[in-house]
């Protein structure tokens, strides 16, 4: 069994290596036809840029994106600088330099990778999936009897912030940086999934399709790991199936199919304010121009945030969204599960958490109010602030850095819920409802707690669960996403996630159950 695991790891690493090398290799040949088409589609009117491109790029052969990309970005930046200087504002190119490089790259790839998409898919995704499964599945036997199997988590390099964890950290952060800021280097990855994208939406794949496909793949493979590790725990099995379903069907398949049907791309479960650009002008316009379905989405998006989300939180706690439906939560609960113990439980972190997460919520709501004001009054500024620049700041700082680079990249070091705990504005909103008006609580079982600390250690949201359990208090914290792991790892059966009446939900207990009844009355009635 150990041998199978090792072979699996080896195969996985081959797949990962090929995947990692891809951004740096491949041939690109920009034909005049491709160039003309891009100029037309992007509406580029800068002769300066076109001349530079004709001179340096068109008709030439490039080995790897590293040699092609600078030519394009430099041409664009030089052109824009020239036009700004000459006040030729109409000629400025507003497409980002790296986006344009990606577009040019996508249209001009040639050679082995482009001609062997299926094979290349197999050498990257295929080997990755096979290797990972060979690594994971032997655990059915190796883990022995069913039950909690956390043996060695703090002895192993990968799960105890050792060098492997740091390598994973560097890899994930780099991957997100490429995705958000250097998408031209993702061009070769897009070829691998072109056939799948064309099958679904009819369009060739962009780098966000690569991300979406990879997201689903990683979640599925790591869900297999969850099923094996928590096979004694039905709550975990059902919950894992649920997040997997919502990711694959709602976040991935439905939006792609909607594009094929000439409808707007929309993820029906992605609620504002997590879906921060829902009220952005371009989105509202696109929805309003898409007829019945657009209108439906608009109404659905508003009802989802204002009615469905809080009502569901009232009945089930925010877990129904955060750990049963949400995509971010889905990745955290599958890929992130081996790192859940790294969330800090200190009081200091809790203070930081409250400032940050509520700060982001205020930011998101404020930005949206500005956006709507601008939309209806058709003015670009509110109180002297440019709406567009506030939106750009949010997209960069919160959308890209916080949610992506930090949110997932920092898994191996700070735990799997960094974004959900410190940054997600929707989680903050749900948290208010959960804390003040919800039937959900984690019940503490009388006096059974032995303060061992497993619950706190494995809480991904950094809640010091033990602090409540050892006092006999129920846990009603706003940040709890109801993953159920505290209950699973408890060796004494102390914790239970449940939805019950509001009465008795918060139970002040100065003296725990089991000690003399008179004393309890005395202290509690004082």
């Amino acid at each position, binding site marked *: 069994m150990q041998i199978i695991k090792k072979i699996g790891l080896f195969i996985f690493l081959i797949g990962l290596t090929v995947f990692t090398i891809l951004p740096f290799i491949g041939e690109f040949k920009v034909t005049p036809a491709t160039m003309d088409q891009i100029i037309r589609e992007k509406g580029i009117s800068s002769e300066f840029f076109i001349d530079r491109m004709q001179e340096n790029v068109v008709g030439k052969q490039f080995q790897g994106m590293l040699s092609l990309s600078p030519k394009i970005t430099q041409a664009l930046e030089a052109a824009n600088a020239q036009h700004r200087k000459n006040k030729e504002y109409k000629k400025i190119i507003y497409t980002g330099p790296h986006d344009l490089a990606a577009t040019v790259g996508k249209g001009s790839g040639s050679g082995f990778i482009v001609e062997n998409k299926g094979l290349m898919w197999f050498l990257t995704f295929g080997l990755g999936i096979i290797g990972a499964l060979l690594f994971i599945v032997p655990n059915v036997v190796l883990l*022995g*009897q*069913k*039950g*909690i199997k*956390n*043996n*060695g*988590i*703090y*002895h*192993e390099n990968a799960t105890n912030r050792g060098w492997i964890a740091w390598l994973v950290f560097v890899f994930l952060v780099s991957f997100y940086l490429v995705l958000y800021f250097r998408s031209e280097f993702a061009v070769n990855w897009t070829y691998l999934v072109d056939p799948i994208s064309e099958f679904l939406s009819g369009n060739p794949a962009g780098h966000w399709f690569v991300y979406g496909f990879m997201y689903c793949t990683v979640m599925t493979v790591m869900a297999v790991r969850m099923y094996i590790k928590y096979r*004694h*725990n*039905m*709550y975990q*099995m*059902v919950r894992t199936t649920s997040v997997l379903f919502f990711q694959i069907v709602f976040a991935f398949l439905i939006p792609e199919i909607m594009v094929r049907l000439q409808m707007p791309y929309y993820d029906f479960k992605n609620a504002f304010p997590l879906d921060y650009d829902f009220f952005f002008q371009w989105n509202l316009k696109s929805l309003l121009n898409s007829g019945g379905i657009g209108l439906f989405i608009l109404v659905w998006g508003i009802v989802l945030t204002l009615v469905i989300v809080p009502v569901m939180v009232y009945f089930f706690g925010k877990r129904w969204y955060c750990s049963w439906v949400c995509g971010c939560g889905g990745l955290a609960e599958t890929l992130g599960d081996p790192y859940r113990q790294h969330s800090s439980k*200190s*009081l200091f972190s809790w203070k930081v958490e409250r400032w940050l997460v509520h700060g982001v919520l205020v930011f998101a709501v404020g930005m949206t109010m500005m956006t709507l004001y601008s939309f209806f009054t058709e003015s670009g500024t509110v109180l002297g602030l440019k709406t567009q620049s506030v939106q750009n700041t949010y997209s960069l700082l919160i959308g890209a850095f916080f949610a992506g680079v930090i949110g997932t990249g920092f898994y191996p070091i700070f735990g799997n819920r960094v974004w959900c705990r410190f940054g997600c504005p929707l989680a903050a909103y749900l948290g208010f409802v959960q804390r003040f008006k919800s039937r959900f609580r984690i*019940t503490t*079982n*009388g*006096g*059974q707690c*032995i*303060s*061992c*600390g*497993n619950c*706190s*250690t494995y809480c991904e949201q950094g809640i010091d669960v*033990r*602090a409540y359990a*050892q006092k006999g208090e129920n846990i009603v914290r706003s940040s709890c996403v109801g993953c*159920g792991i505290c*209950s*699973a*790892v408890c*060796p*004494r*059966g102390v914790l*239970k*996630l*449940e939805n*019950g*009446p509001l*009465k*008795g939900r918060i*139970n002040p207990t100065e*003296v*725990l*159950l*089991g*000690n*003399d*009844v*008179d*004393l309890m009355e*005395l202290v509690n009635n004082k």
Partner: protein
Amino acid sequence: MEHIVIIGNGISGITAARHIRKLSDKKITIISAESDYFFSRTALMYVYMGHMKFEHTQPYENWFWKKNRLNLVHGYVTQVDTANKKLILNGSEEMGYDKLIIATGSKPNKFGWPGQDLKGVQGLYSKQDLELLETNAPNNEVCKRAVIVGGGLIGIELAEMLRSRDIPVTFLVREDSFWNGVLPEGESQMINEHILEHHIDLKLGTNLKEIIADENGWAKAVVTDKGEMIPCTVVGLTAGVAPNIDFLKGSGIELGKGVKVNNFLETNITDVYAIGDCAEQHESIGNRRPVEAVWYTGRMMGETLAQTICGNKTAYNPGHWFNSAKFLDIEYQTYGWVFSERAKKDHEQHFHWRHPKEKICVTIAFHRDTKLFLGINTFGIRMRHEILDRWLTEKRSVSYVLEYLKDANFDPEFYAEYEQAIISCYNSHYGTNIRPKKKSWKRIFSNV
């Protein structure tokens, strides 16, 4: 300002300190030679197994103590001078007190086995024991085999720990079935099976005769009373614990097995109290033993004594017995009294149900004639403490308990439910016609 000195920073001493601080502004000093900060002893096993780091076993952050003006002193109390109300620390330093709380816990039992003090022979109780085990048995190359002597809760925990590093384990149990002085037969039998499933070499009805040394004074083998010689590197002595009170000899404080206390937790000397594992009640409370080495009783004594010390004199009066443990993968909970065949009285009758495939079982004890519910043991099913405590207080009958059993279930959501199977088994056994009632939140919260 009155100076309260607490010897021992375990759950009893720390709970007393916390509650005294909540209720008063007294000066509080806590002395320990074991660790700088309070940690959960019950969690030591998880550190060895790699579930947690040692710091995770500490329920309070390090700033907590200073903030709450709880003075921590690292030291070993060598003498208590009750006449002059002072302690001698580390043989020389003096410390005065106004009130003294002895909360020094237990130490592992050793029964005079030949070779019991050899290198490689150890108990599992303190932080130091954990560190020693890490040296003695870091992996299965250094430790070729471990022999554990004593089939109780610590013994099975130690076995689980060593197995987590694939170290072969032989488990010597004096009884002819695991822990059957406490557990009824069916349950004890199920745990026997589970121990074997974990590839632990379980030797029932077997006693340690001696431990044999190699030329360097290390244990190299044990000899059992059946004449078998078992080569090994580490010997774990886990035959129970006894109060850790040797330092009190000659202090004038009355000692028996432990520090003798009345039900206000007072010793024979004014202003000296004892709580937790080291305290021995003059008269046992209900069916409880005079010395109770249980986590929550230590906590409860701390809560109670804090009241007394802060002017609200309160007797220690634990409610209905309850406890829990985990045997490898099987969780165990008990509420009320379910005695083993060896210990039970004539009127105590048992109803036992065991799942046909899974390692799940339930034993309900009731009065043979009155059908009064006496207690329940569950393995692999979690129960709601509050409900069972209430039923015991209300003196419910066994049929009432079965009828409303769903109210008491505490398993996570979506778990398979066994009430129907348990009740039909009871019905067919006793010719009754009990039907389970649906779980009701109203009933669960009716007393809140």
